[in-house]
């Protein structure tokens, strides 16, 4: 902000108040319905609430039970870890490769772009239902290949409790890779051609130009992709519910499905709230450093 800029018209009272007036309802709504309820959930997690909320303080007992006596919670945490790391890695790798390939001025680029982006237009519910049928050994891929004559072929990840979490990764990557592609493509188009030309004049090969110049300059795109994908991963709920229902058993349970089951189906509101708070803190651990670096960046600029 420059010091010389005047501070808006002081004379017109309405004009001065109007922006604040217009923003006030949204501000109040966010204050109550976002921050208010975060605080409420935090408080509930420190009580012994079961079917209905009560407000008697009970300390950190719920958190203690969560981490020491609930094997299902650890399954959910481990799944979240497997899912989010593979989901983010594959989405970015696939998105980047596709973006680089599309960036080679291919013919019918618009056509390919549409195809790759199309899964994004579907909700996770549709993706989940489609993949559920594709991966079902009685209906989908396994049966198709066996009917083609390969009778020894088996593909049963969906019904195998050790492999089922990877089917969730598969469906989620299929859905979101196109979105990452779009982000990277926009980033690639934003790079100044003259830099690349200069490198070419210097005799650098194309892979080397990509590796040394283009990809490093896409750093902000990487950062936003990771942030966007990781919050999709932490909140993943609908895909799991539709694709596996958390099963076989609870092998593909995630913190979000865990929270829902305990808070709403089992009358353990405080326990569910405690798991929700752990999820919230996990998201905060990702978002706060990001916001901090962003805000610091603009202040210095």
């Amino acid at each position: 902000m420059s010091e010389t800029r005047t501070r808006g018209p002081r004379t017109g009272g309405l004009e001065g108040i109007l922006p604040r007036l217009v923003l006030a309802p949204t501000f109040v709504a966010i204050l109550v319905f976002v921050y208010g309820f975060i605080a409420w959930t935090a408080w509930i997690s420190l009580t012994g609430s079961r079917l209905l909320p009560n407000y008697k303080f009970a300390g950190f007992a719920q958190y203690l039970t969560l981490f020491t006596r609930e094997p299902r919670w650890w399954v959910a945490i481990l799944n979240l870890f497997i899912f989010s790391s593979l989901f983010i890695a594959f989405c970015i790798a696939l998105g980047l490769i596709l973006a680089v390939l599309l960036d080679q001025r291919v013919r019918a680029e618009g056509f390919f772009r549409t195809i790759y982006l199309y899964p994004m237009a579907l909700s996770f519910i549709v993706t989940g239902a489609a993949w559920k049928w594709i991966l079902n050994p009685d209906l989908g891929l396994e049966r198709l290949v066996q009917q083609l004559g390969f009778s020894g072929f088996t593909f049963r990840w969906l019904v195998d409790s050790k492999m089922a979490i990877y089917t969730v990764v598969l469906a989620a990557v299929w859905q979101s890779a196109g979105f990452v592609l779009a982000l990277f493509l926009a980033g690639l188009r934003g790079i100044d051609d003259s830099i690349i030309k200069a490198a070419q004049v210097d005799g650098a090969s194309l892979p080397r130009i990509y590796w040394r110049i283009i990809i490093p300059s896409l750093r902000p795109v990487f950062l936003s992709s990771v942030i966007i994908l990781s919050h999709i991963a932490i909140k993943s709920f609908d895909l799991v519910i539709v694709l596996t229902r958390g099963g076989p058993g609870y092998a593909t349970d995630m913190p979000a499905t865990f929270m829902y089951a305990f808070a709403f189906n089992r009358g353990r509101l405080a326990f569910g709230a405690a798991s929700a708070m752990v999820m919230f803190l996990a998201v905060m651990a990702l978002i706060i450093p990001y916001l901090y670096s962003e805000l610091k960046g603009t202040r210095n600029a």
Partner: protein
Amino acid sequence: MKRLAIAVLLLGLLAFSATAGEVEVLHWWTSGGEAAAVGVLKQLLEKEGHTWKDFAVAGGGGDNAMTVLKSRAVAGNPPTAAQVKGPQIQLWGDEGVLTNLDDVAKAEKWDSLLPKVVADVMKYQGRYVAVPVNVHRINWMWVNPAVFKKAGAKIPTTWAEFETAAKKIQAAGLIPVGWGGQPWQEATVFETIVAGEGGTDFYKQAMIEADPEALNSTTMVKVLETLRMVKNFADKGAPGRDWNLATAMVIKGEAGMQFMGDWAKGEFVAAGKKPDVDYVAVAAPGTARQFLFNIDSFIMFKVKSAANEKAQKAMARLILQSEFQKVFNQNKGSIPVRMGMDPKLFDIPGQLSMKDFAASSKSGDLVPSMAHEMAVMPAIRGAIMDVVTNFINSDMSARDAAEQMANAVQAAM
């Protein structure tokens, strides 16, 4: 003059509303037969001049309805009655929002109409706060006799006989058990085996009292081993399968048998199959004398106006009278909770069920179902189901599972 007319009209309306009240009923009976069954109650109430305000919340096997009910109750504006069952009635009683139905119960002699086990579920601190609607039996085995004939197998009455029969069916190239791999269905088979292998006393200890010693006992290890044996006779597509698809496998003759509550009968009826000809319904192996029950009920909330209270009491009275019990249960496929009704009003599996219901209530083998939220609080049920489904879907040993079950239940208390 005009004003007077209006005043008279208003007074008339007031007088009318003083005798005729309104009931708002929260339920999740929205599918064809169920909706028709509820419609009967609506008609009976309207015949007495009351109005019925339907508050149906579909989906999630009642989970959605419960979420709505909680928010209404927290806001201090609960409906007149809500479909709540089993130990959850006690939780609502603890909140102090339920009304006392003892006057209706006394006038209608509920204590002599209902088995004591059932009446106890409906009472909070000795007072009636809920009305039972119907009885479902859980421990059924649905058999396709054609499959058994083809395999040369005999319908089993013990779990050992089951293994022999299942092997024969497998050898004939068919699937012995139509299995739905969802936690509640797996828990249904589990509790059936607990009753069949462990007996009624062990069932009460493990599934009702959730006694850690019973849960982590050699009997439980044996039960879990039997459960795994039964599961191994299911096909590879079982995980996640809905119960009615598993029933369809039995109907089509792809699978030999299914363990499921008596609502499975609806699928056979809808497919035009005849009992004792196209399908046979028998008690699951080892549970011929036992009756694991699942009873739907309505809890009644305190209401403010006298007229509405009158309507509420009328609803409670009508639910247990023979007229409603007959029509409702014929539509729903369950049996009346009111004892001593004419069995001829119901079909063959219904008659058998009614006979066993009466006999088991005398012998003490009438026990509430754990899997169907009748025996323990939802938190404990969830803990047991987690272990059962994890045991079935992994290679965990039966001994470890029994130990984990005892631990999980203690953590959830």
